[in-house]
């Protein structure tokens, strides 16, 4: 005890450095440094001789005001908000609904349902994108058959400007609904049984028990699911790239910030890539994501402080 106590008081013994070095070096070199380098690059522009020249916030100003950039940026931002809204309004309520069914002790085969419903979540977005491209292809007619049962007329869903984005959002919901389901399920299961039973004895209906007792208790999870959805959605790229290519057609109707960033950075067809404007878009995405995360931290701050003490 005494000996270990004195070892710990020495300033930076060598073994602590050895333990920390690999993680700190890899993380700093391949994550923090590139992020800062990207942000720095967003303040530069290629000069006449091809050398990068410092231009301050000029790139951001161009992105937000120039006719060449602003419509694309705000279009992608708007589409991304729609993408996020559909996840919040469809994915998370369905996840909560499935979780509330699966948390009931009376349902037999809960583990099997849970495992099967989660399956699409483990597939790569590339596969999911192509699977749904086939299903929605009017040539194969699967979507026509199924929608016909409900009296809905089949359409080239991915080819129309009005439907492409909502339909692709729903494909993403189909894939990822397992994540909110699992998080809600964990929260619902950890509610003490006595609380529910006490309410039942008092004559509360299942509906009441859910909204008056369970839902307030899982509110922290609702917050976590919302912020995870936000970060994931504003960082999305693969699904749109797989189904609609980097052009995010038709006519940019499915262009989100991730595809806009990729297109700008790498260029497309005849348009050459533009690393500094790409870095500028990444800088804006970082700002948007940080704003969302900070909003969450301040809304749920009290809860988070409590968690910190527990850790």
């Amino acid at each position: 005890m005494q000996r270990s106590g004195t070892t710990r008081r020495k300033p930076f013994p060598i073994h602590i450095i050895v333990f920390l070095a690999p993680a700190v070096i890899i993380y700093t070199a391949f994550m923090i440094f590139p992020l800062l380098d990207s942000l720095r690059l967003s303040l530069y522009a290629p000069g006449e001789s091809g050398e990068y020249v410092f231009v301050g916030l000029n790139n951001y100003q161009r992105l937000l005001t120039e006719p060449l950039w602003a419509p694309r940026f705000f279009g992608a931002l708007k589409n991304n908000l729609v993408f996020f809204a559909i996840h919040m309004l469809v994915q998370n309520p369905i996840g909560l609904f499935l979780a509330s069914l699966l948390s009931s002790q009376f349902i037999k085969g809960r583990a099997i349902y849970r495992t099967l419903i989660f399956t699409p979540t483990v597939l790569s977005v590339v596969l999911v994108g192509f699977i749904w491209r086939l299903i929605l292809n009017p040539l194969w007619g699967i979507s026509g058959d199924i929608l016909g049962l409900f009296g809905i007329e089949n359409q080239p869903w991915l080819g129309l400007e009005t439907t492409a984005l909502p339909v692709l959002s729903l494909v993403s919901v189909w894939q990822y609904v397992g994540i909110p389901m699992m998080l809600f399920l964990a929260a619902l299961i950890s509610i003490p049984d006595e609380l529910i039973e006490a309410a039942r004895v008092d004559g509360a209906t299942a509906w009441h028990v859910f909204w008056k007792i369970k839902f307030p208790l899982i509110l922290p999870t609702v917050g976590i699911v919302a912020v995870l959805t936000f970060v994931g959605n504003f960082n999305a790229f693969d699904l749109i790239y797989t189904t609609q290519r980097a052009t995010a057609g038709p006519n940019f109707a499915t262009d989100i910030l991730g595809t806009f960033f990729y297109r700008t950075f790498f260029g497309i067809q005849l348009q050459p890539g533009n690393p500094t404007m790409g870095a500028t878009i990444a800088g804006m995405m970082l700002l948007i994501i940080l704003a969302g995360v900070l909003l969450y931290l301040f809304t749920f701050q009290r809860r988070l402080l409590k968690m910190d003490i527990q850790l």
Partner: protein
Amino acid sequence: MATTLNPTHVSTTRVARRFQLSRLWQLAAAHLALLLYTALALFPIFLVVVNSFKNRRAIFAMPYALPTAETWDPVGYQTVFNNANFGLYFANSLIVTIGALVLILLAGTMASYALAEYRFPGNTLLGLYLALGIMVPIRLGTVGILRLVVALGLADTLWALILVYTASGLPLAIFIMTQFMRQVPRELKDAARVDGASEYRIYWMTLPLVRPALGTVAVFNMIPIWNDLWFPLILAPSENVKTVTLGAQVFLGQFVNDWNAVLASLTLAIIPVVVLYILFSRQLIRGLTAGAVK
């Protein structure tokens, strides 16, 4: 006898029976909802797998039928094997995923051991610094990552992918494992110190005690690394370093009108992931729900 029955007794049995009936209805409705959703989750996958074994005419004429002796045709698989090097892509994905997992677990446990075990100036600050990456997606640093990878001569190598995935996996891994490391009893480590064990030896000793955390971190990182399209597309697009996800993306793009080949390649890509998922689903689900779901 029946007439003398206590009226309150009658009403309570009736209420109980009605309650049981409504319970039954609720159960049936719940099962129906779950079954419908399970069908929705699995039906598209089922359609792809089933039709990959049929001839082109049967794919369109009877998409919902299982392959029969007449409609059986593995031509799609032949196209895949003749035109794409999925064996190589598979090996690349394995190297990248396992390489990154080993590095995440090794560097992650070492760092979290130090953060949990020693009190040194800047401990909390370093913990916060390492936790920053949990909420900031690494993709936003892509411009800088590509510059760095090119400068280091790692462009178009599997090392570039391994290092990037390690960097992006470390923050959450360290965050989770530090909490587990703190729960390892202090007496155990102090007893080993009294016996003259080195700090490195004590770190190695604690690893088996945090095995559940190692499993959670490994399963958590495995799926996103295996499935990632972004970094293979940007950092390692050459044929000899393509991962399965990128290989499938390119192949599917080229053969988009060859339905047999598309369905066969999708099936080939789906099956290993689903088998792995079924093998590890317990760990995955337990990790995702922090142990609340058994």
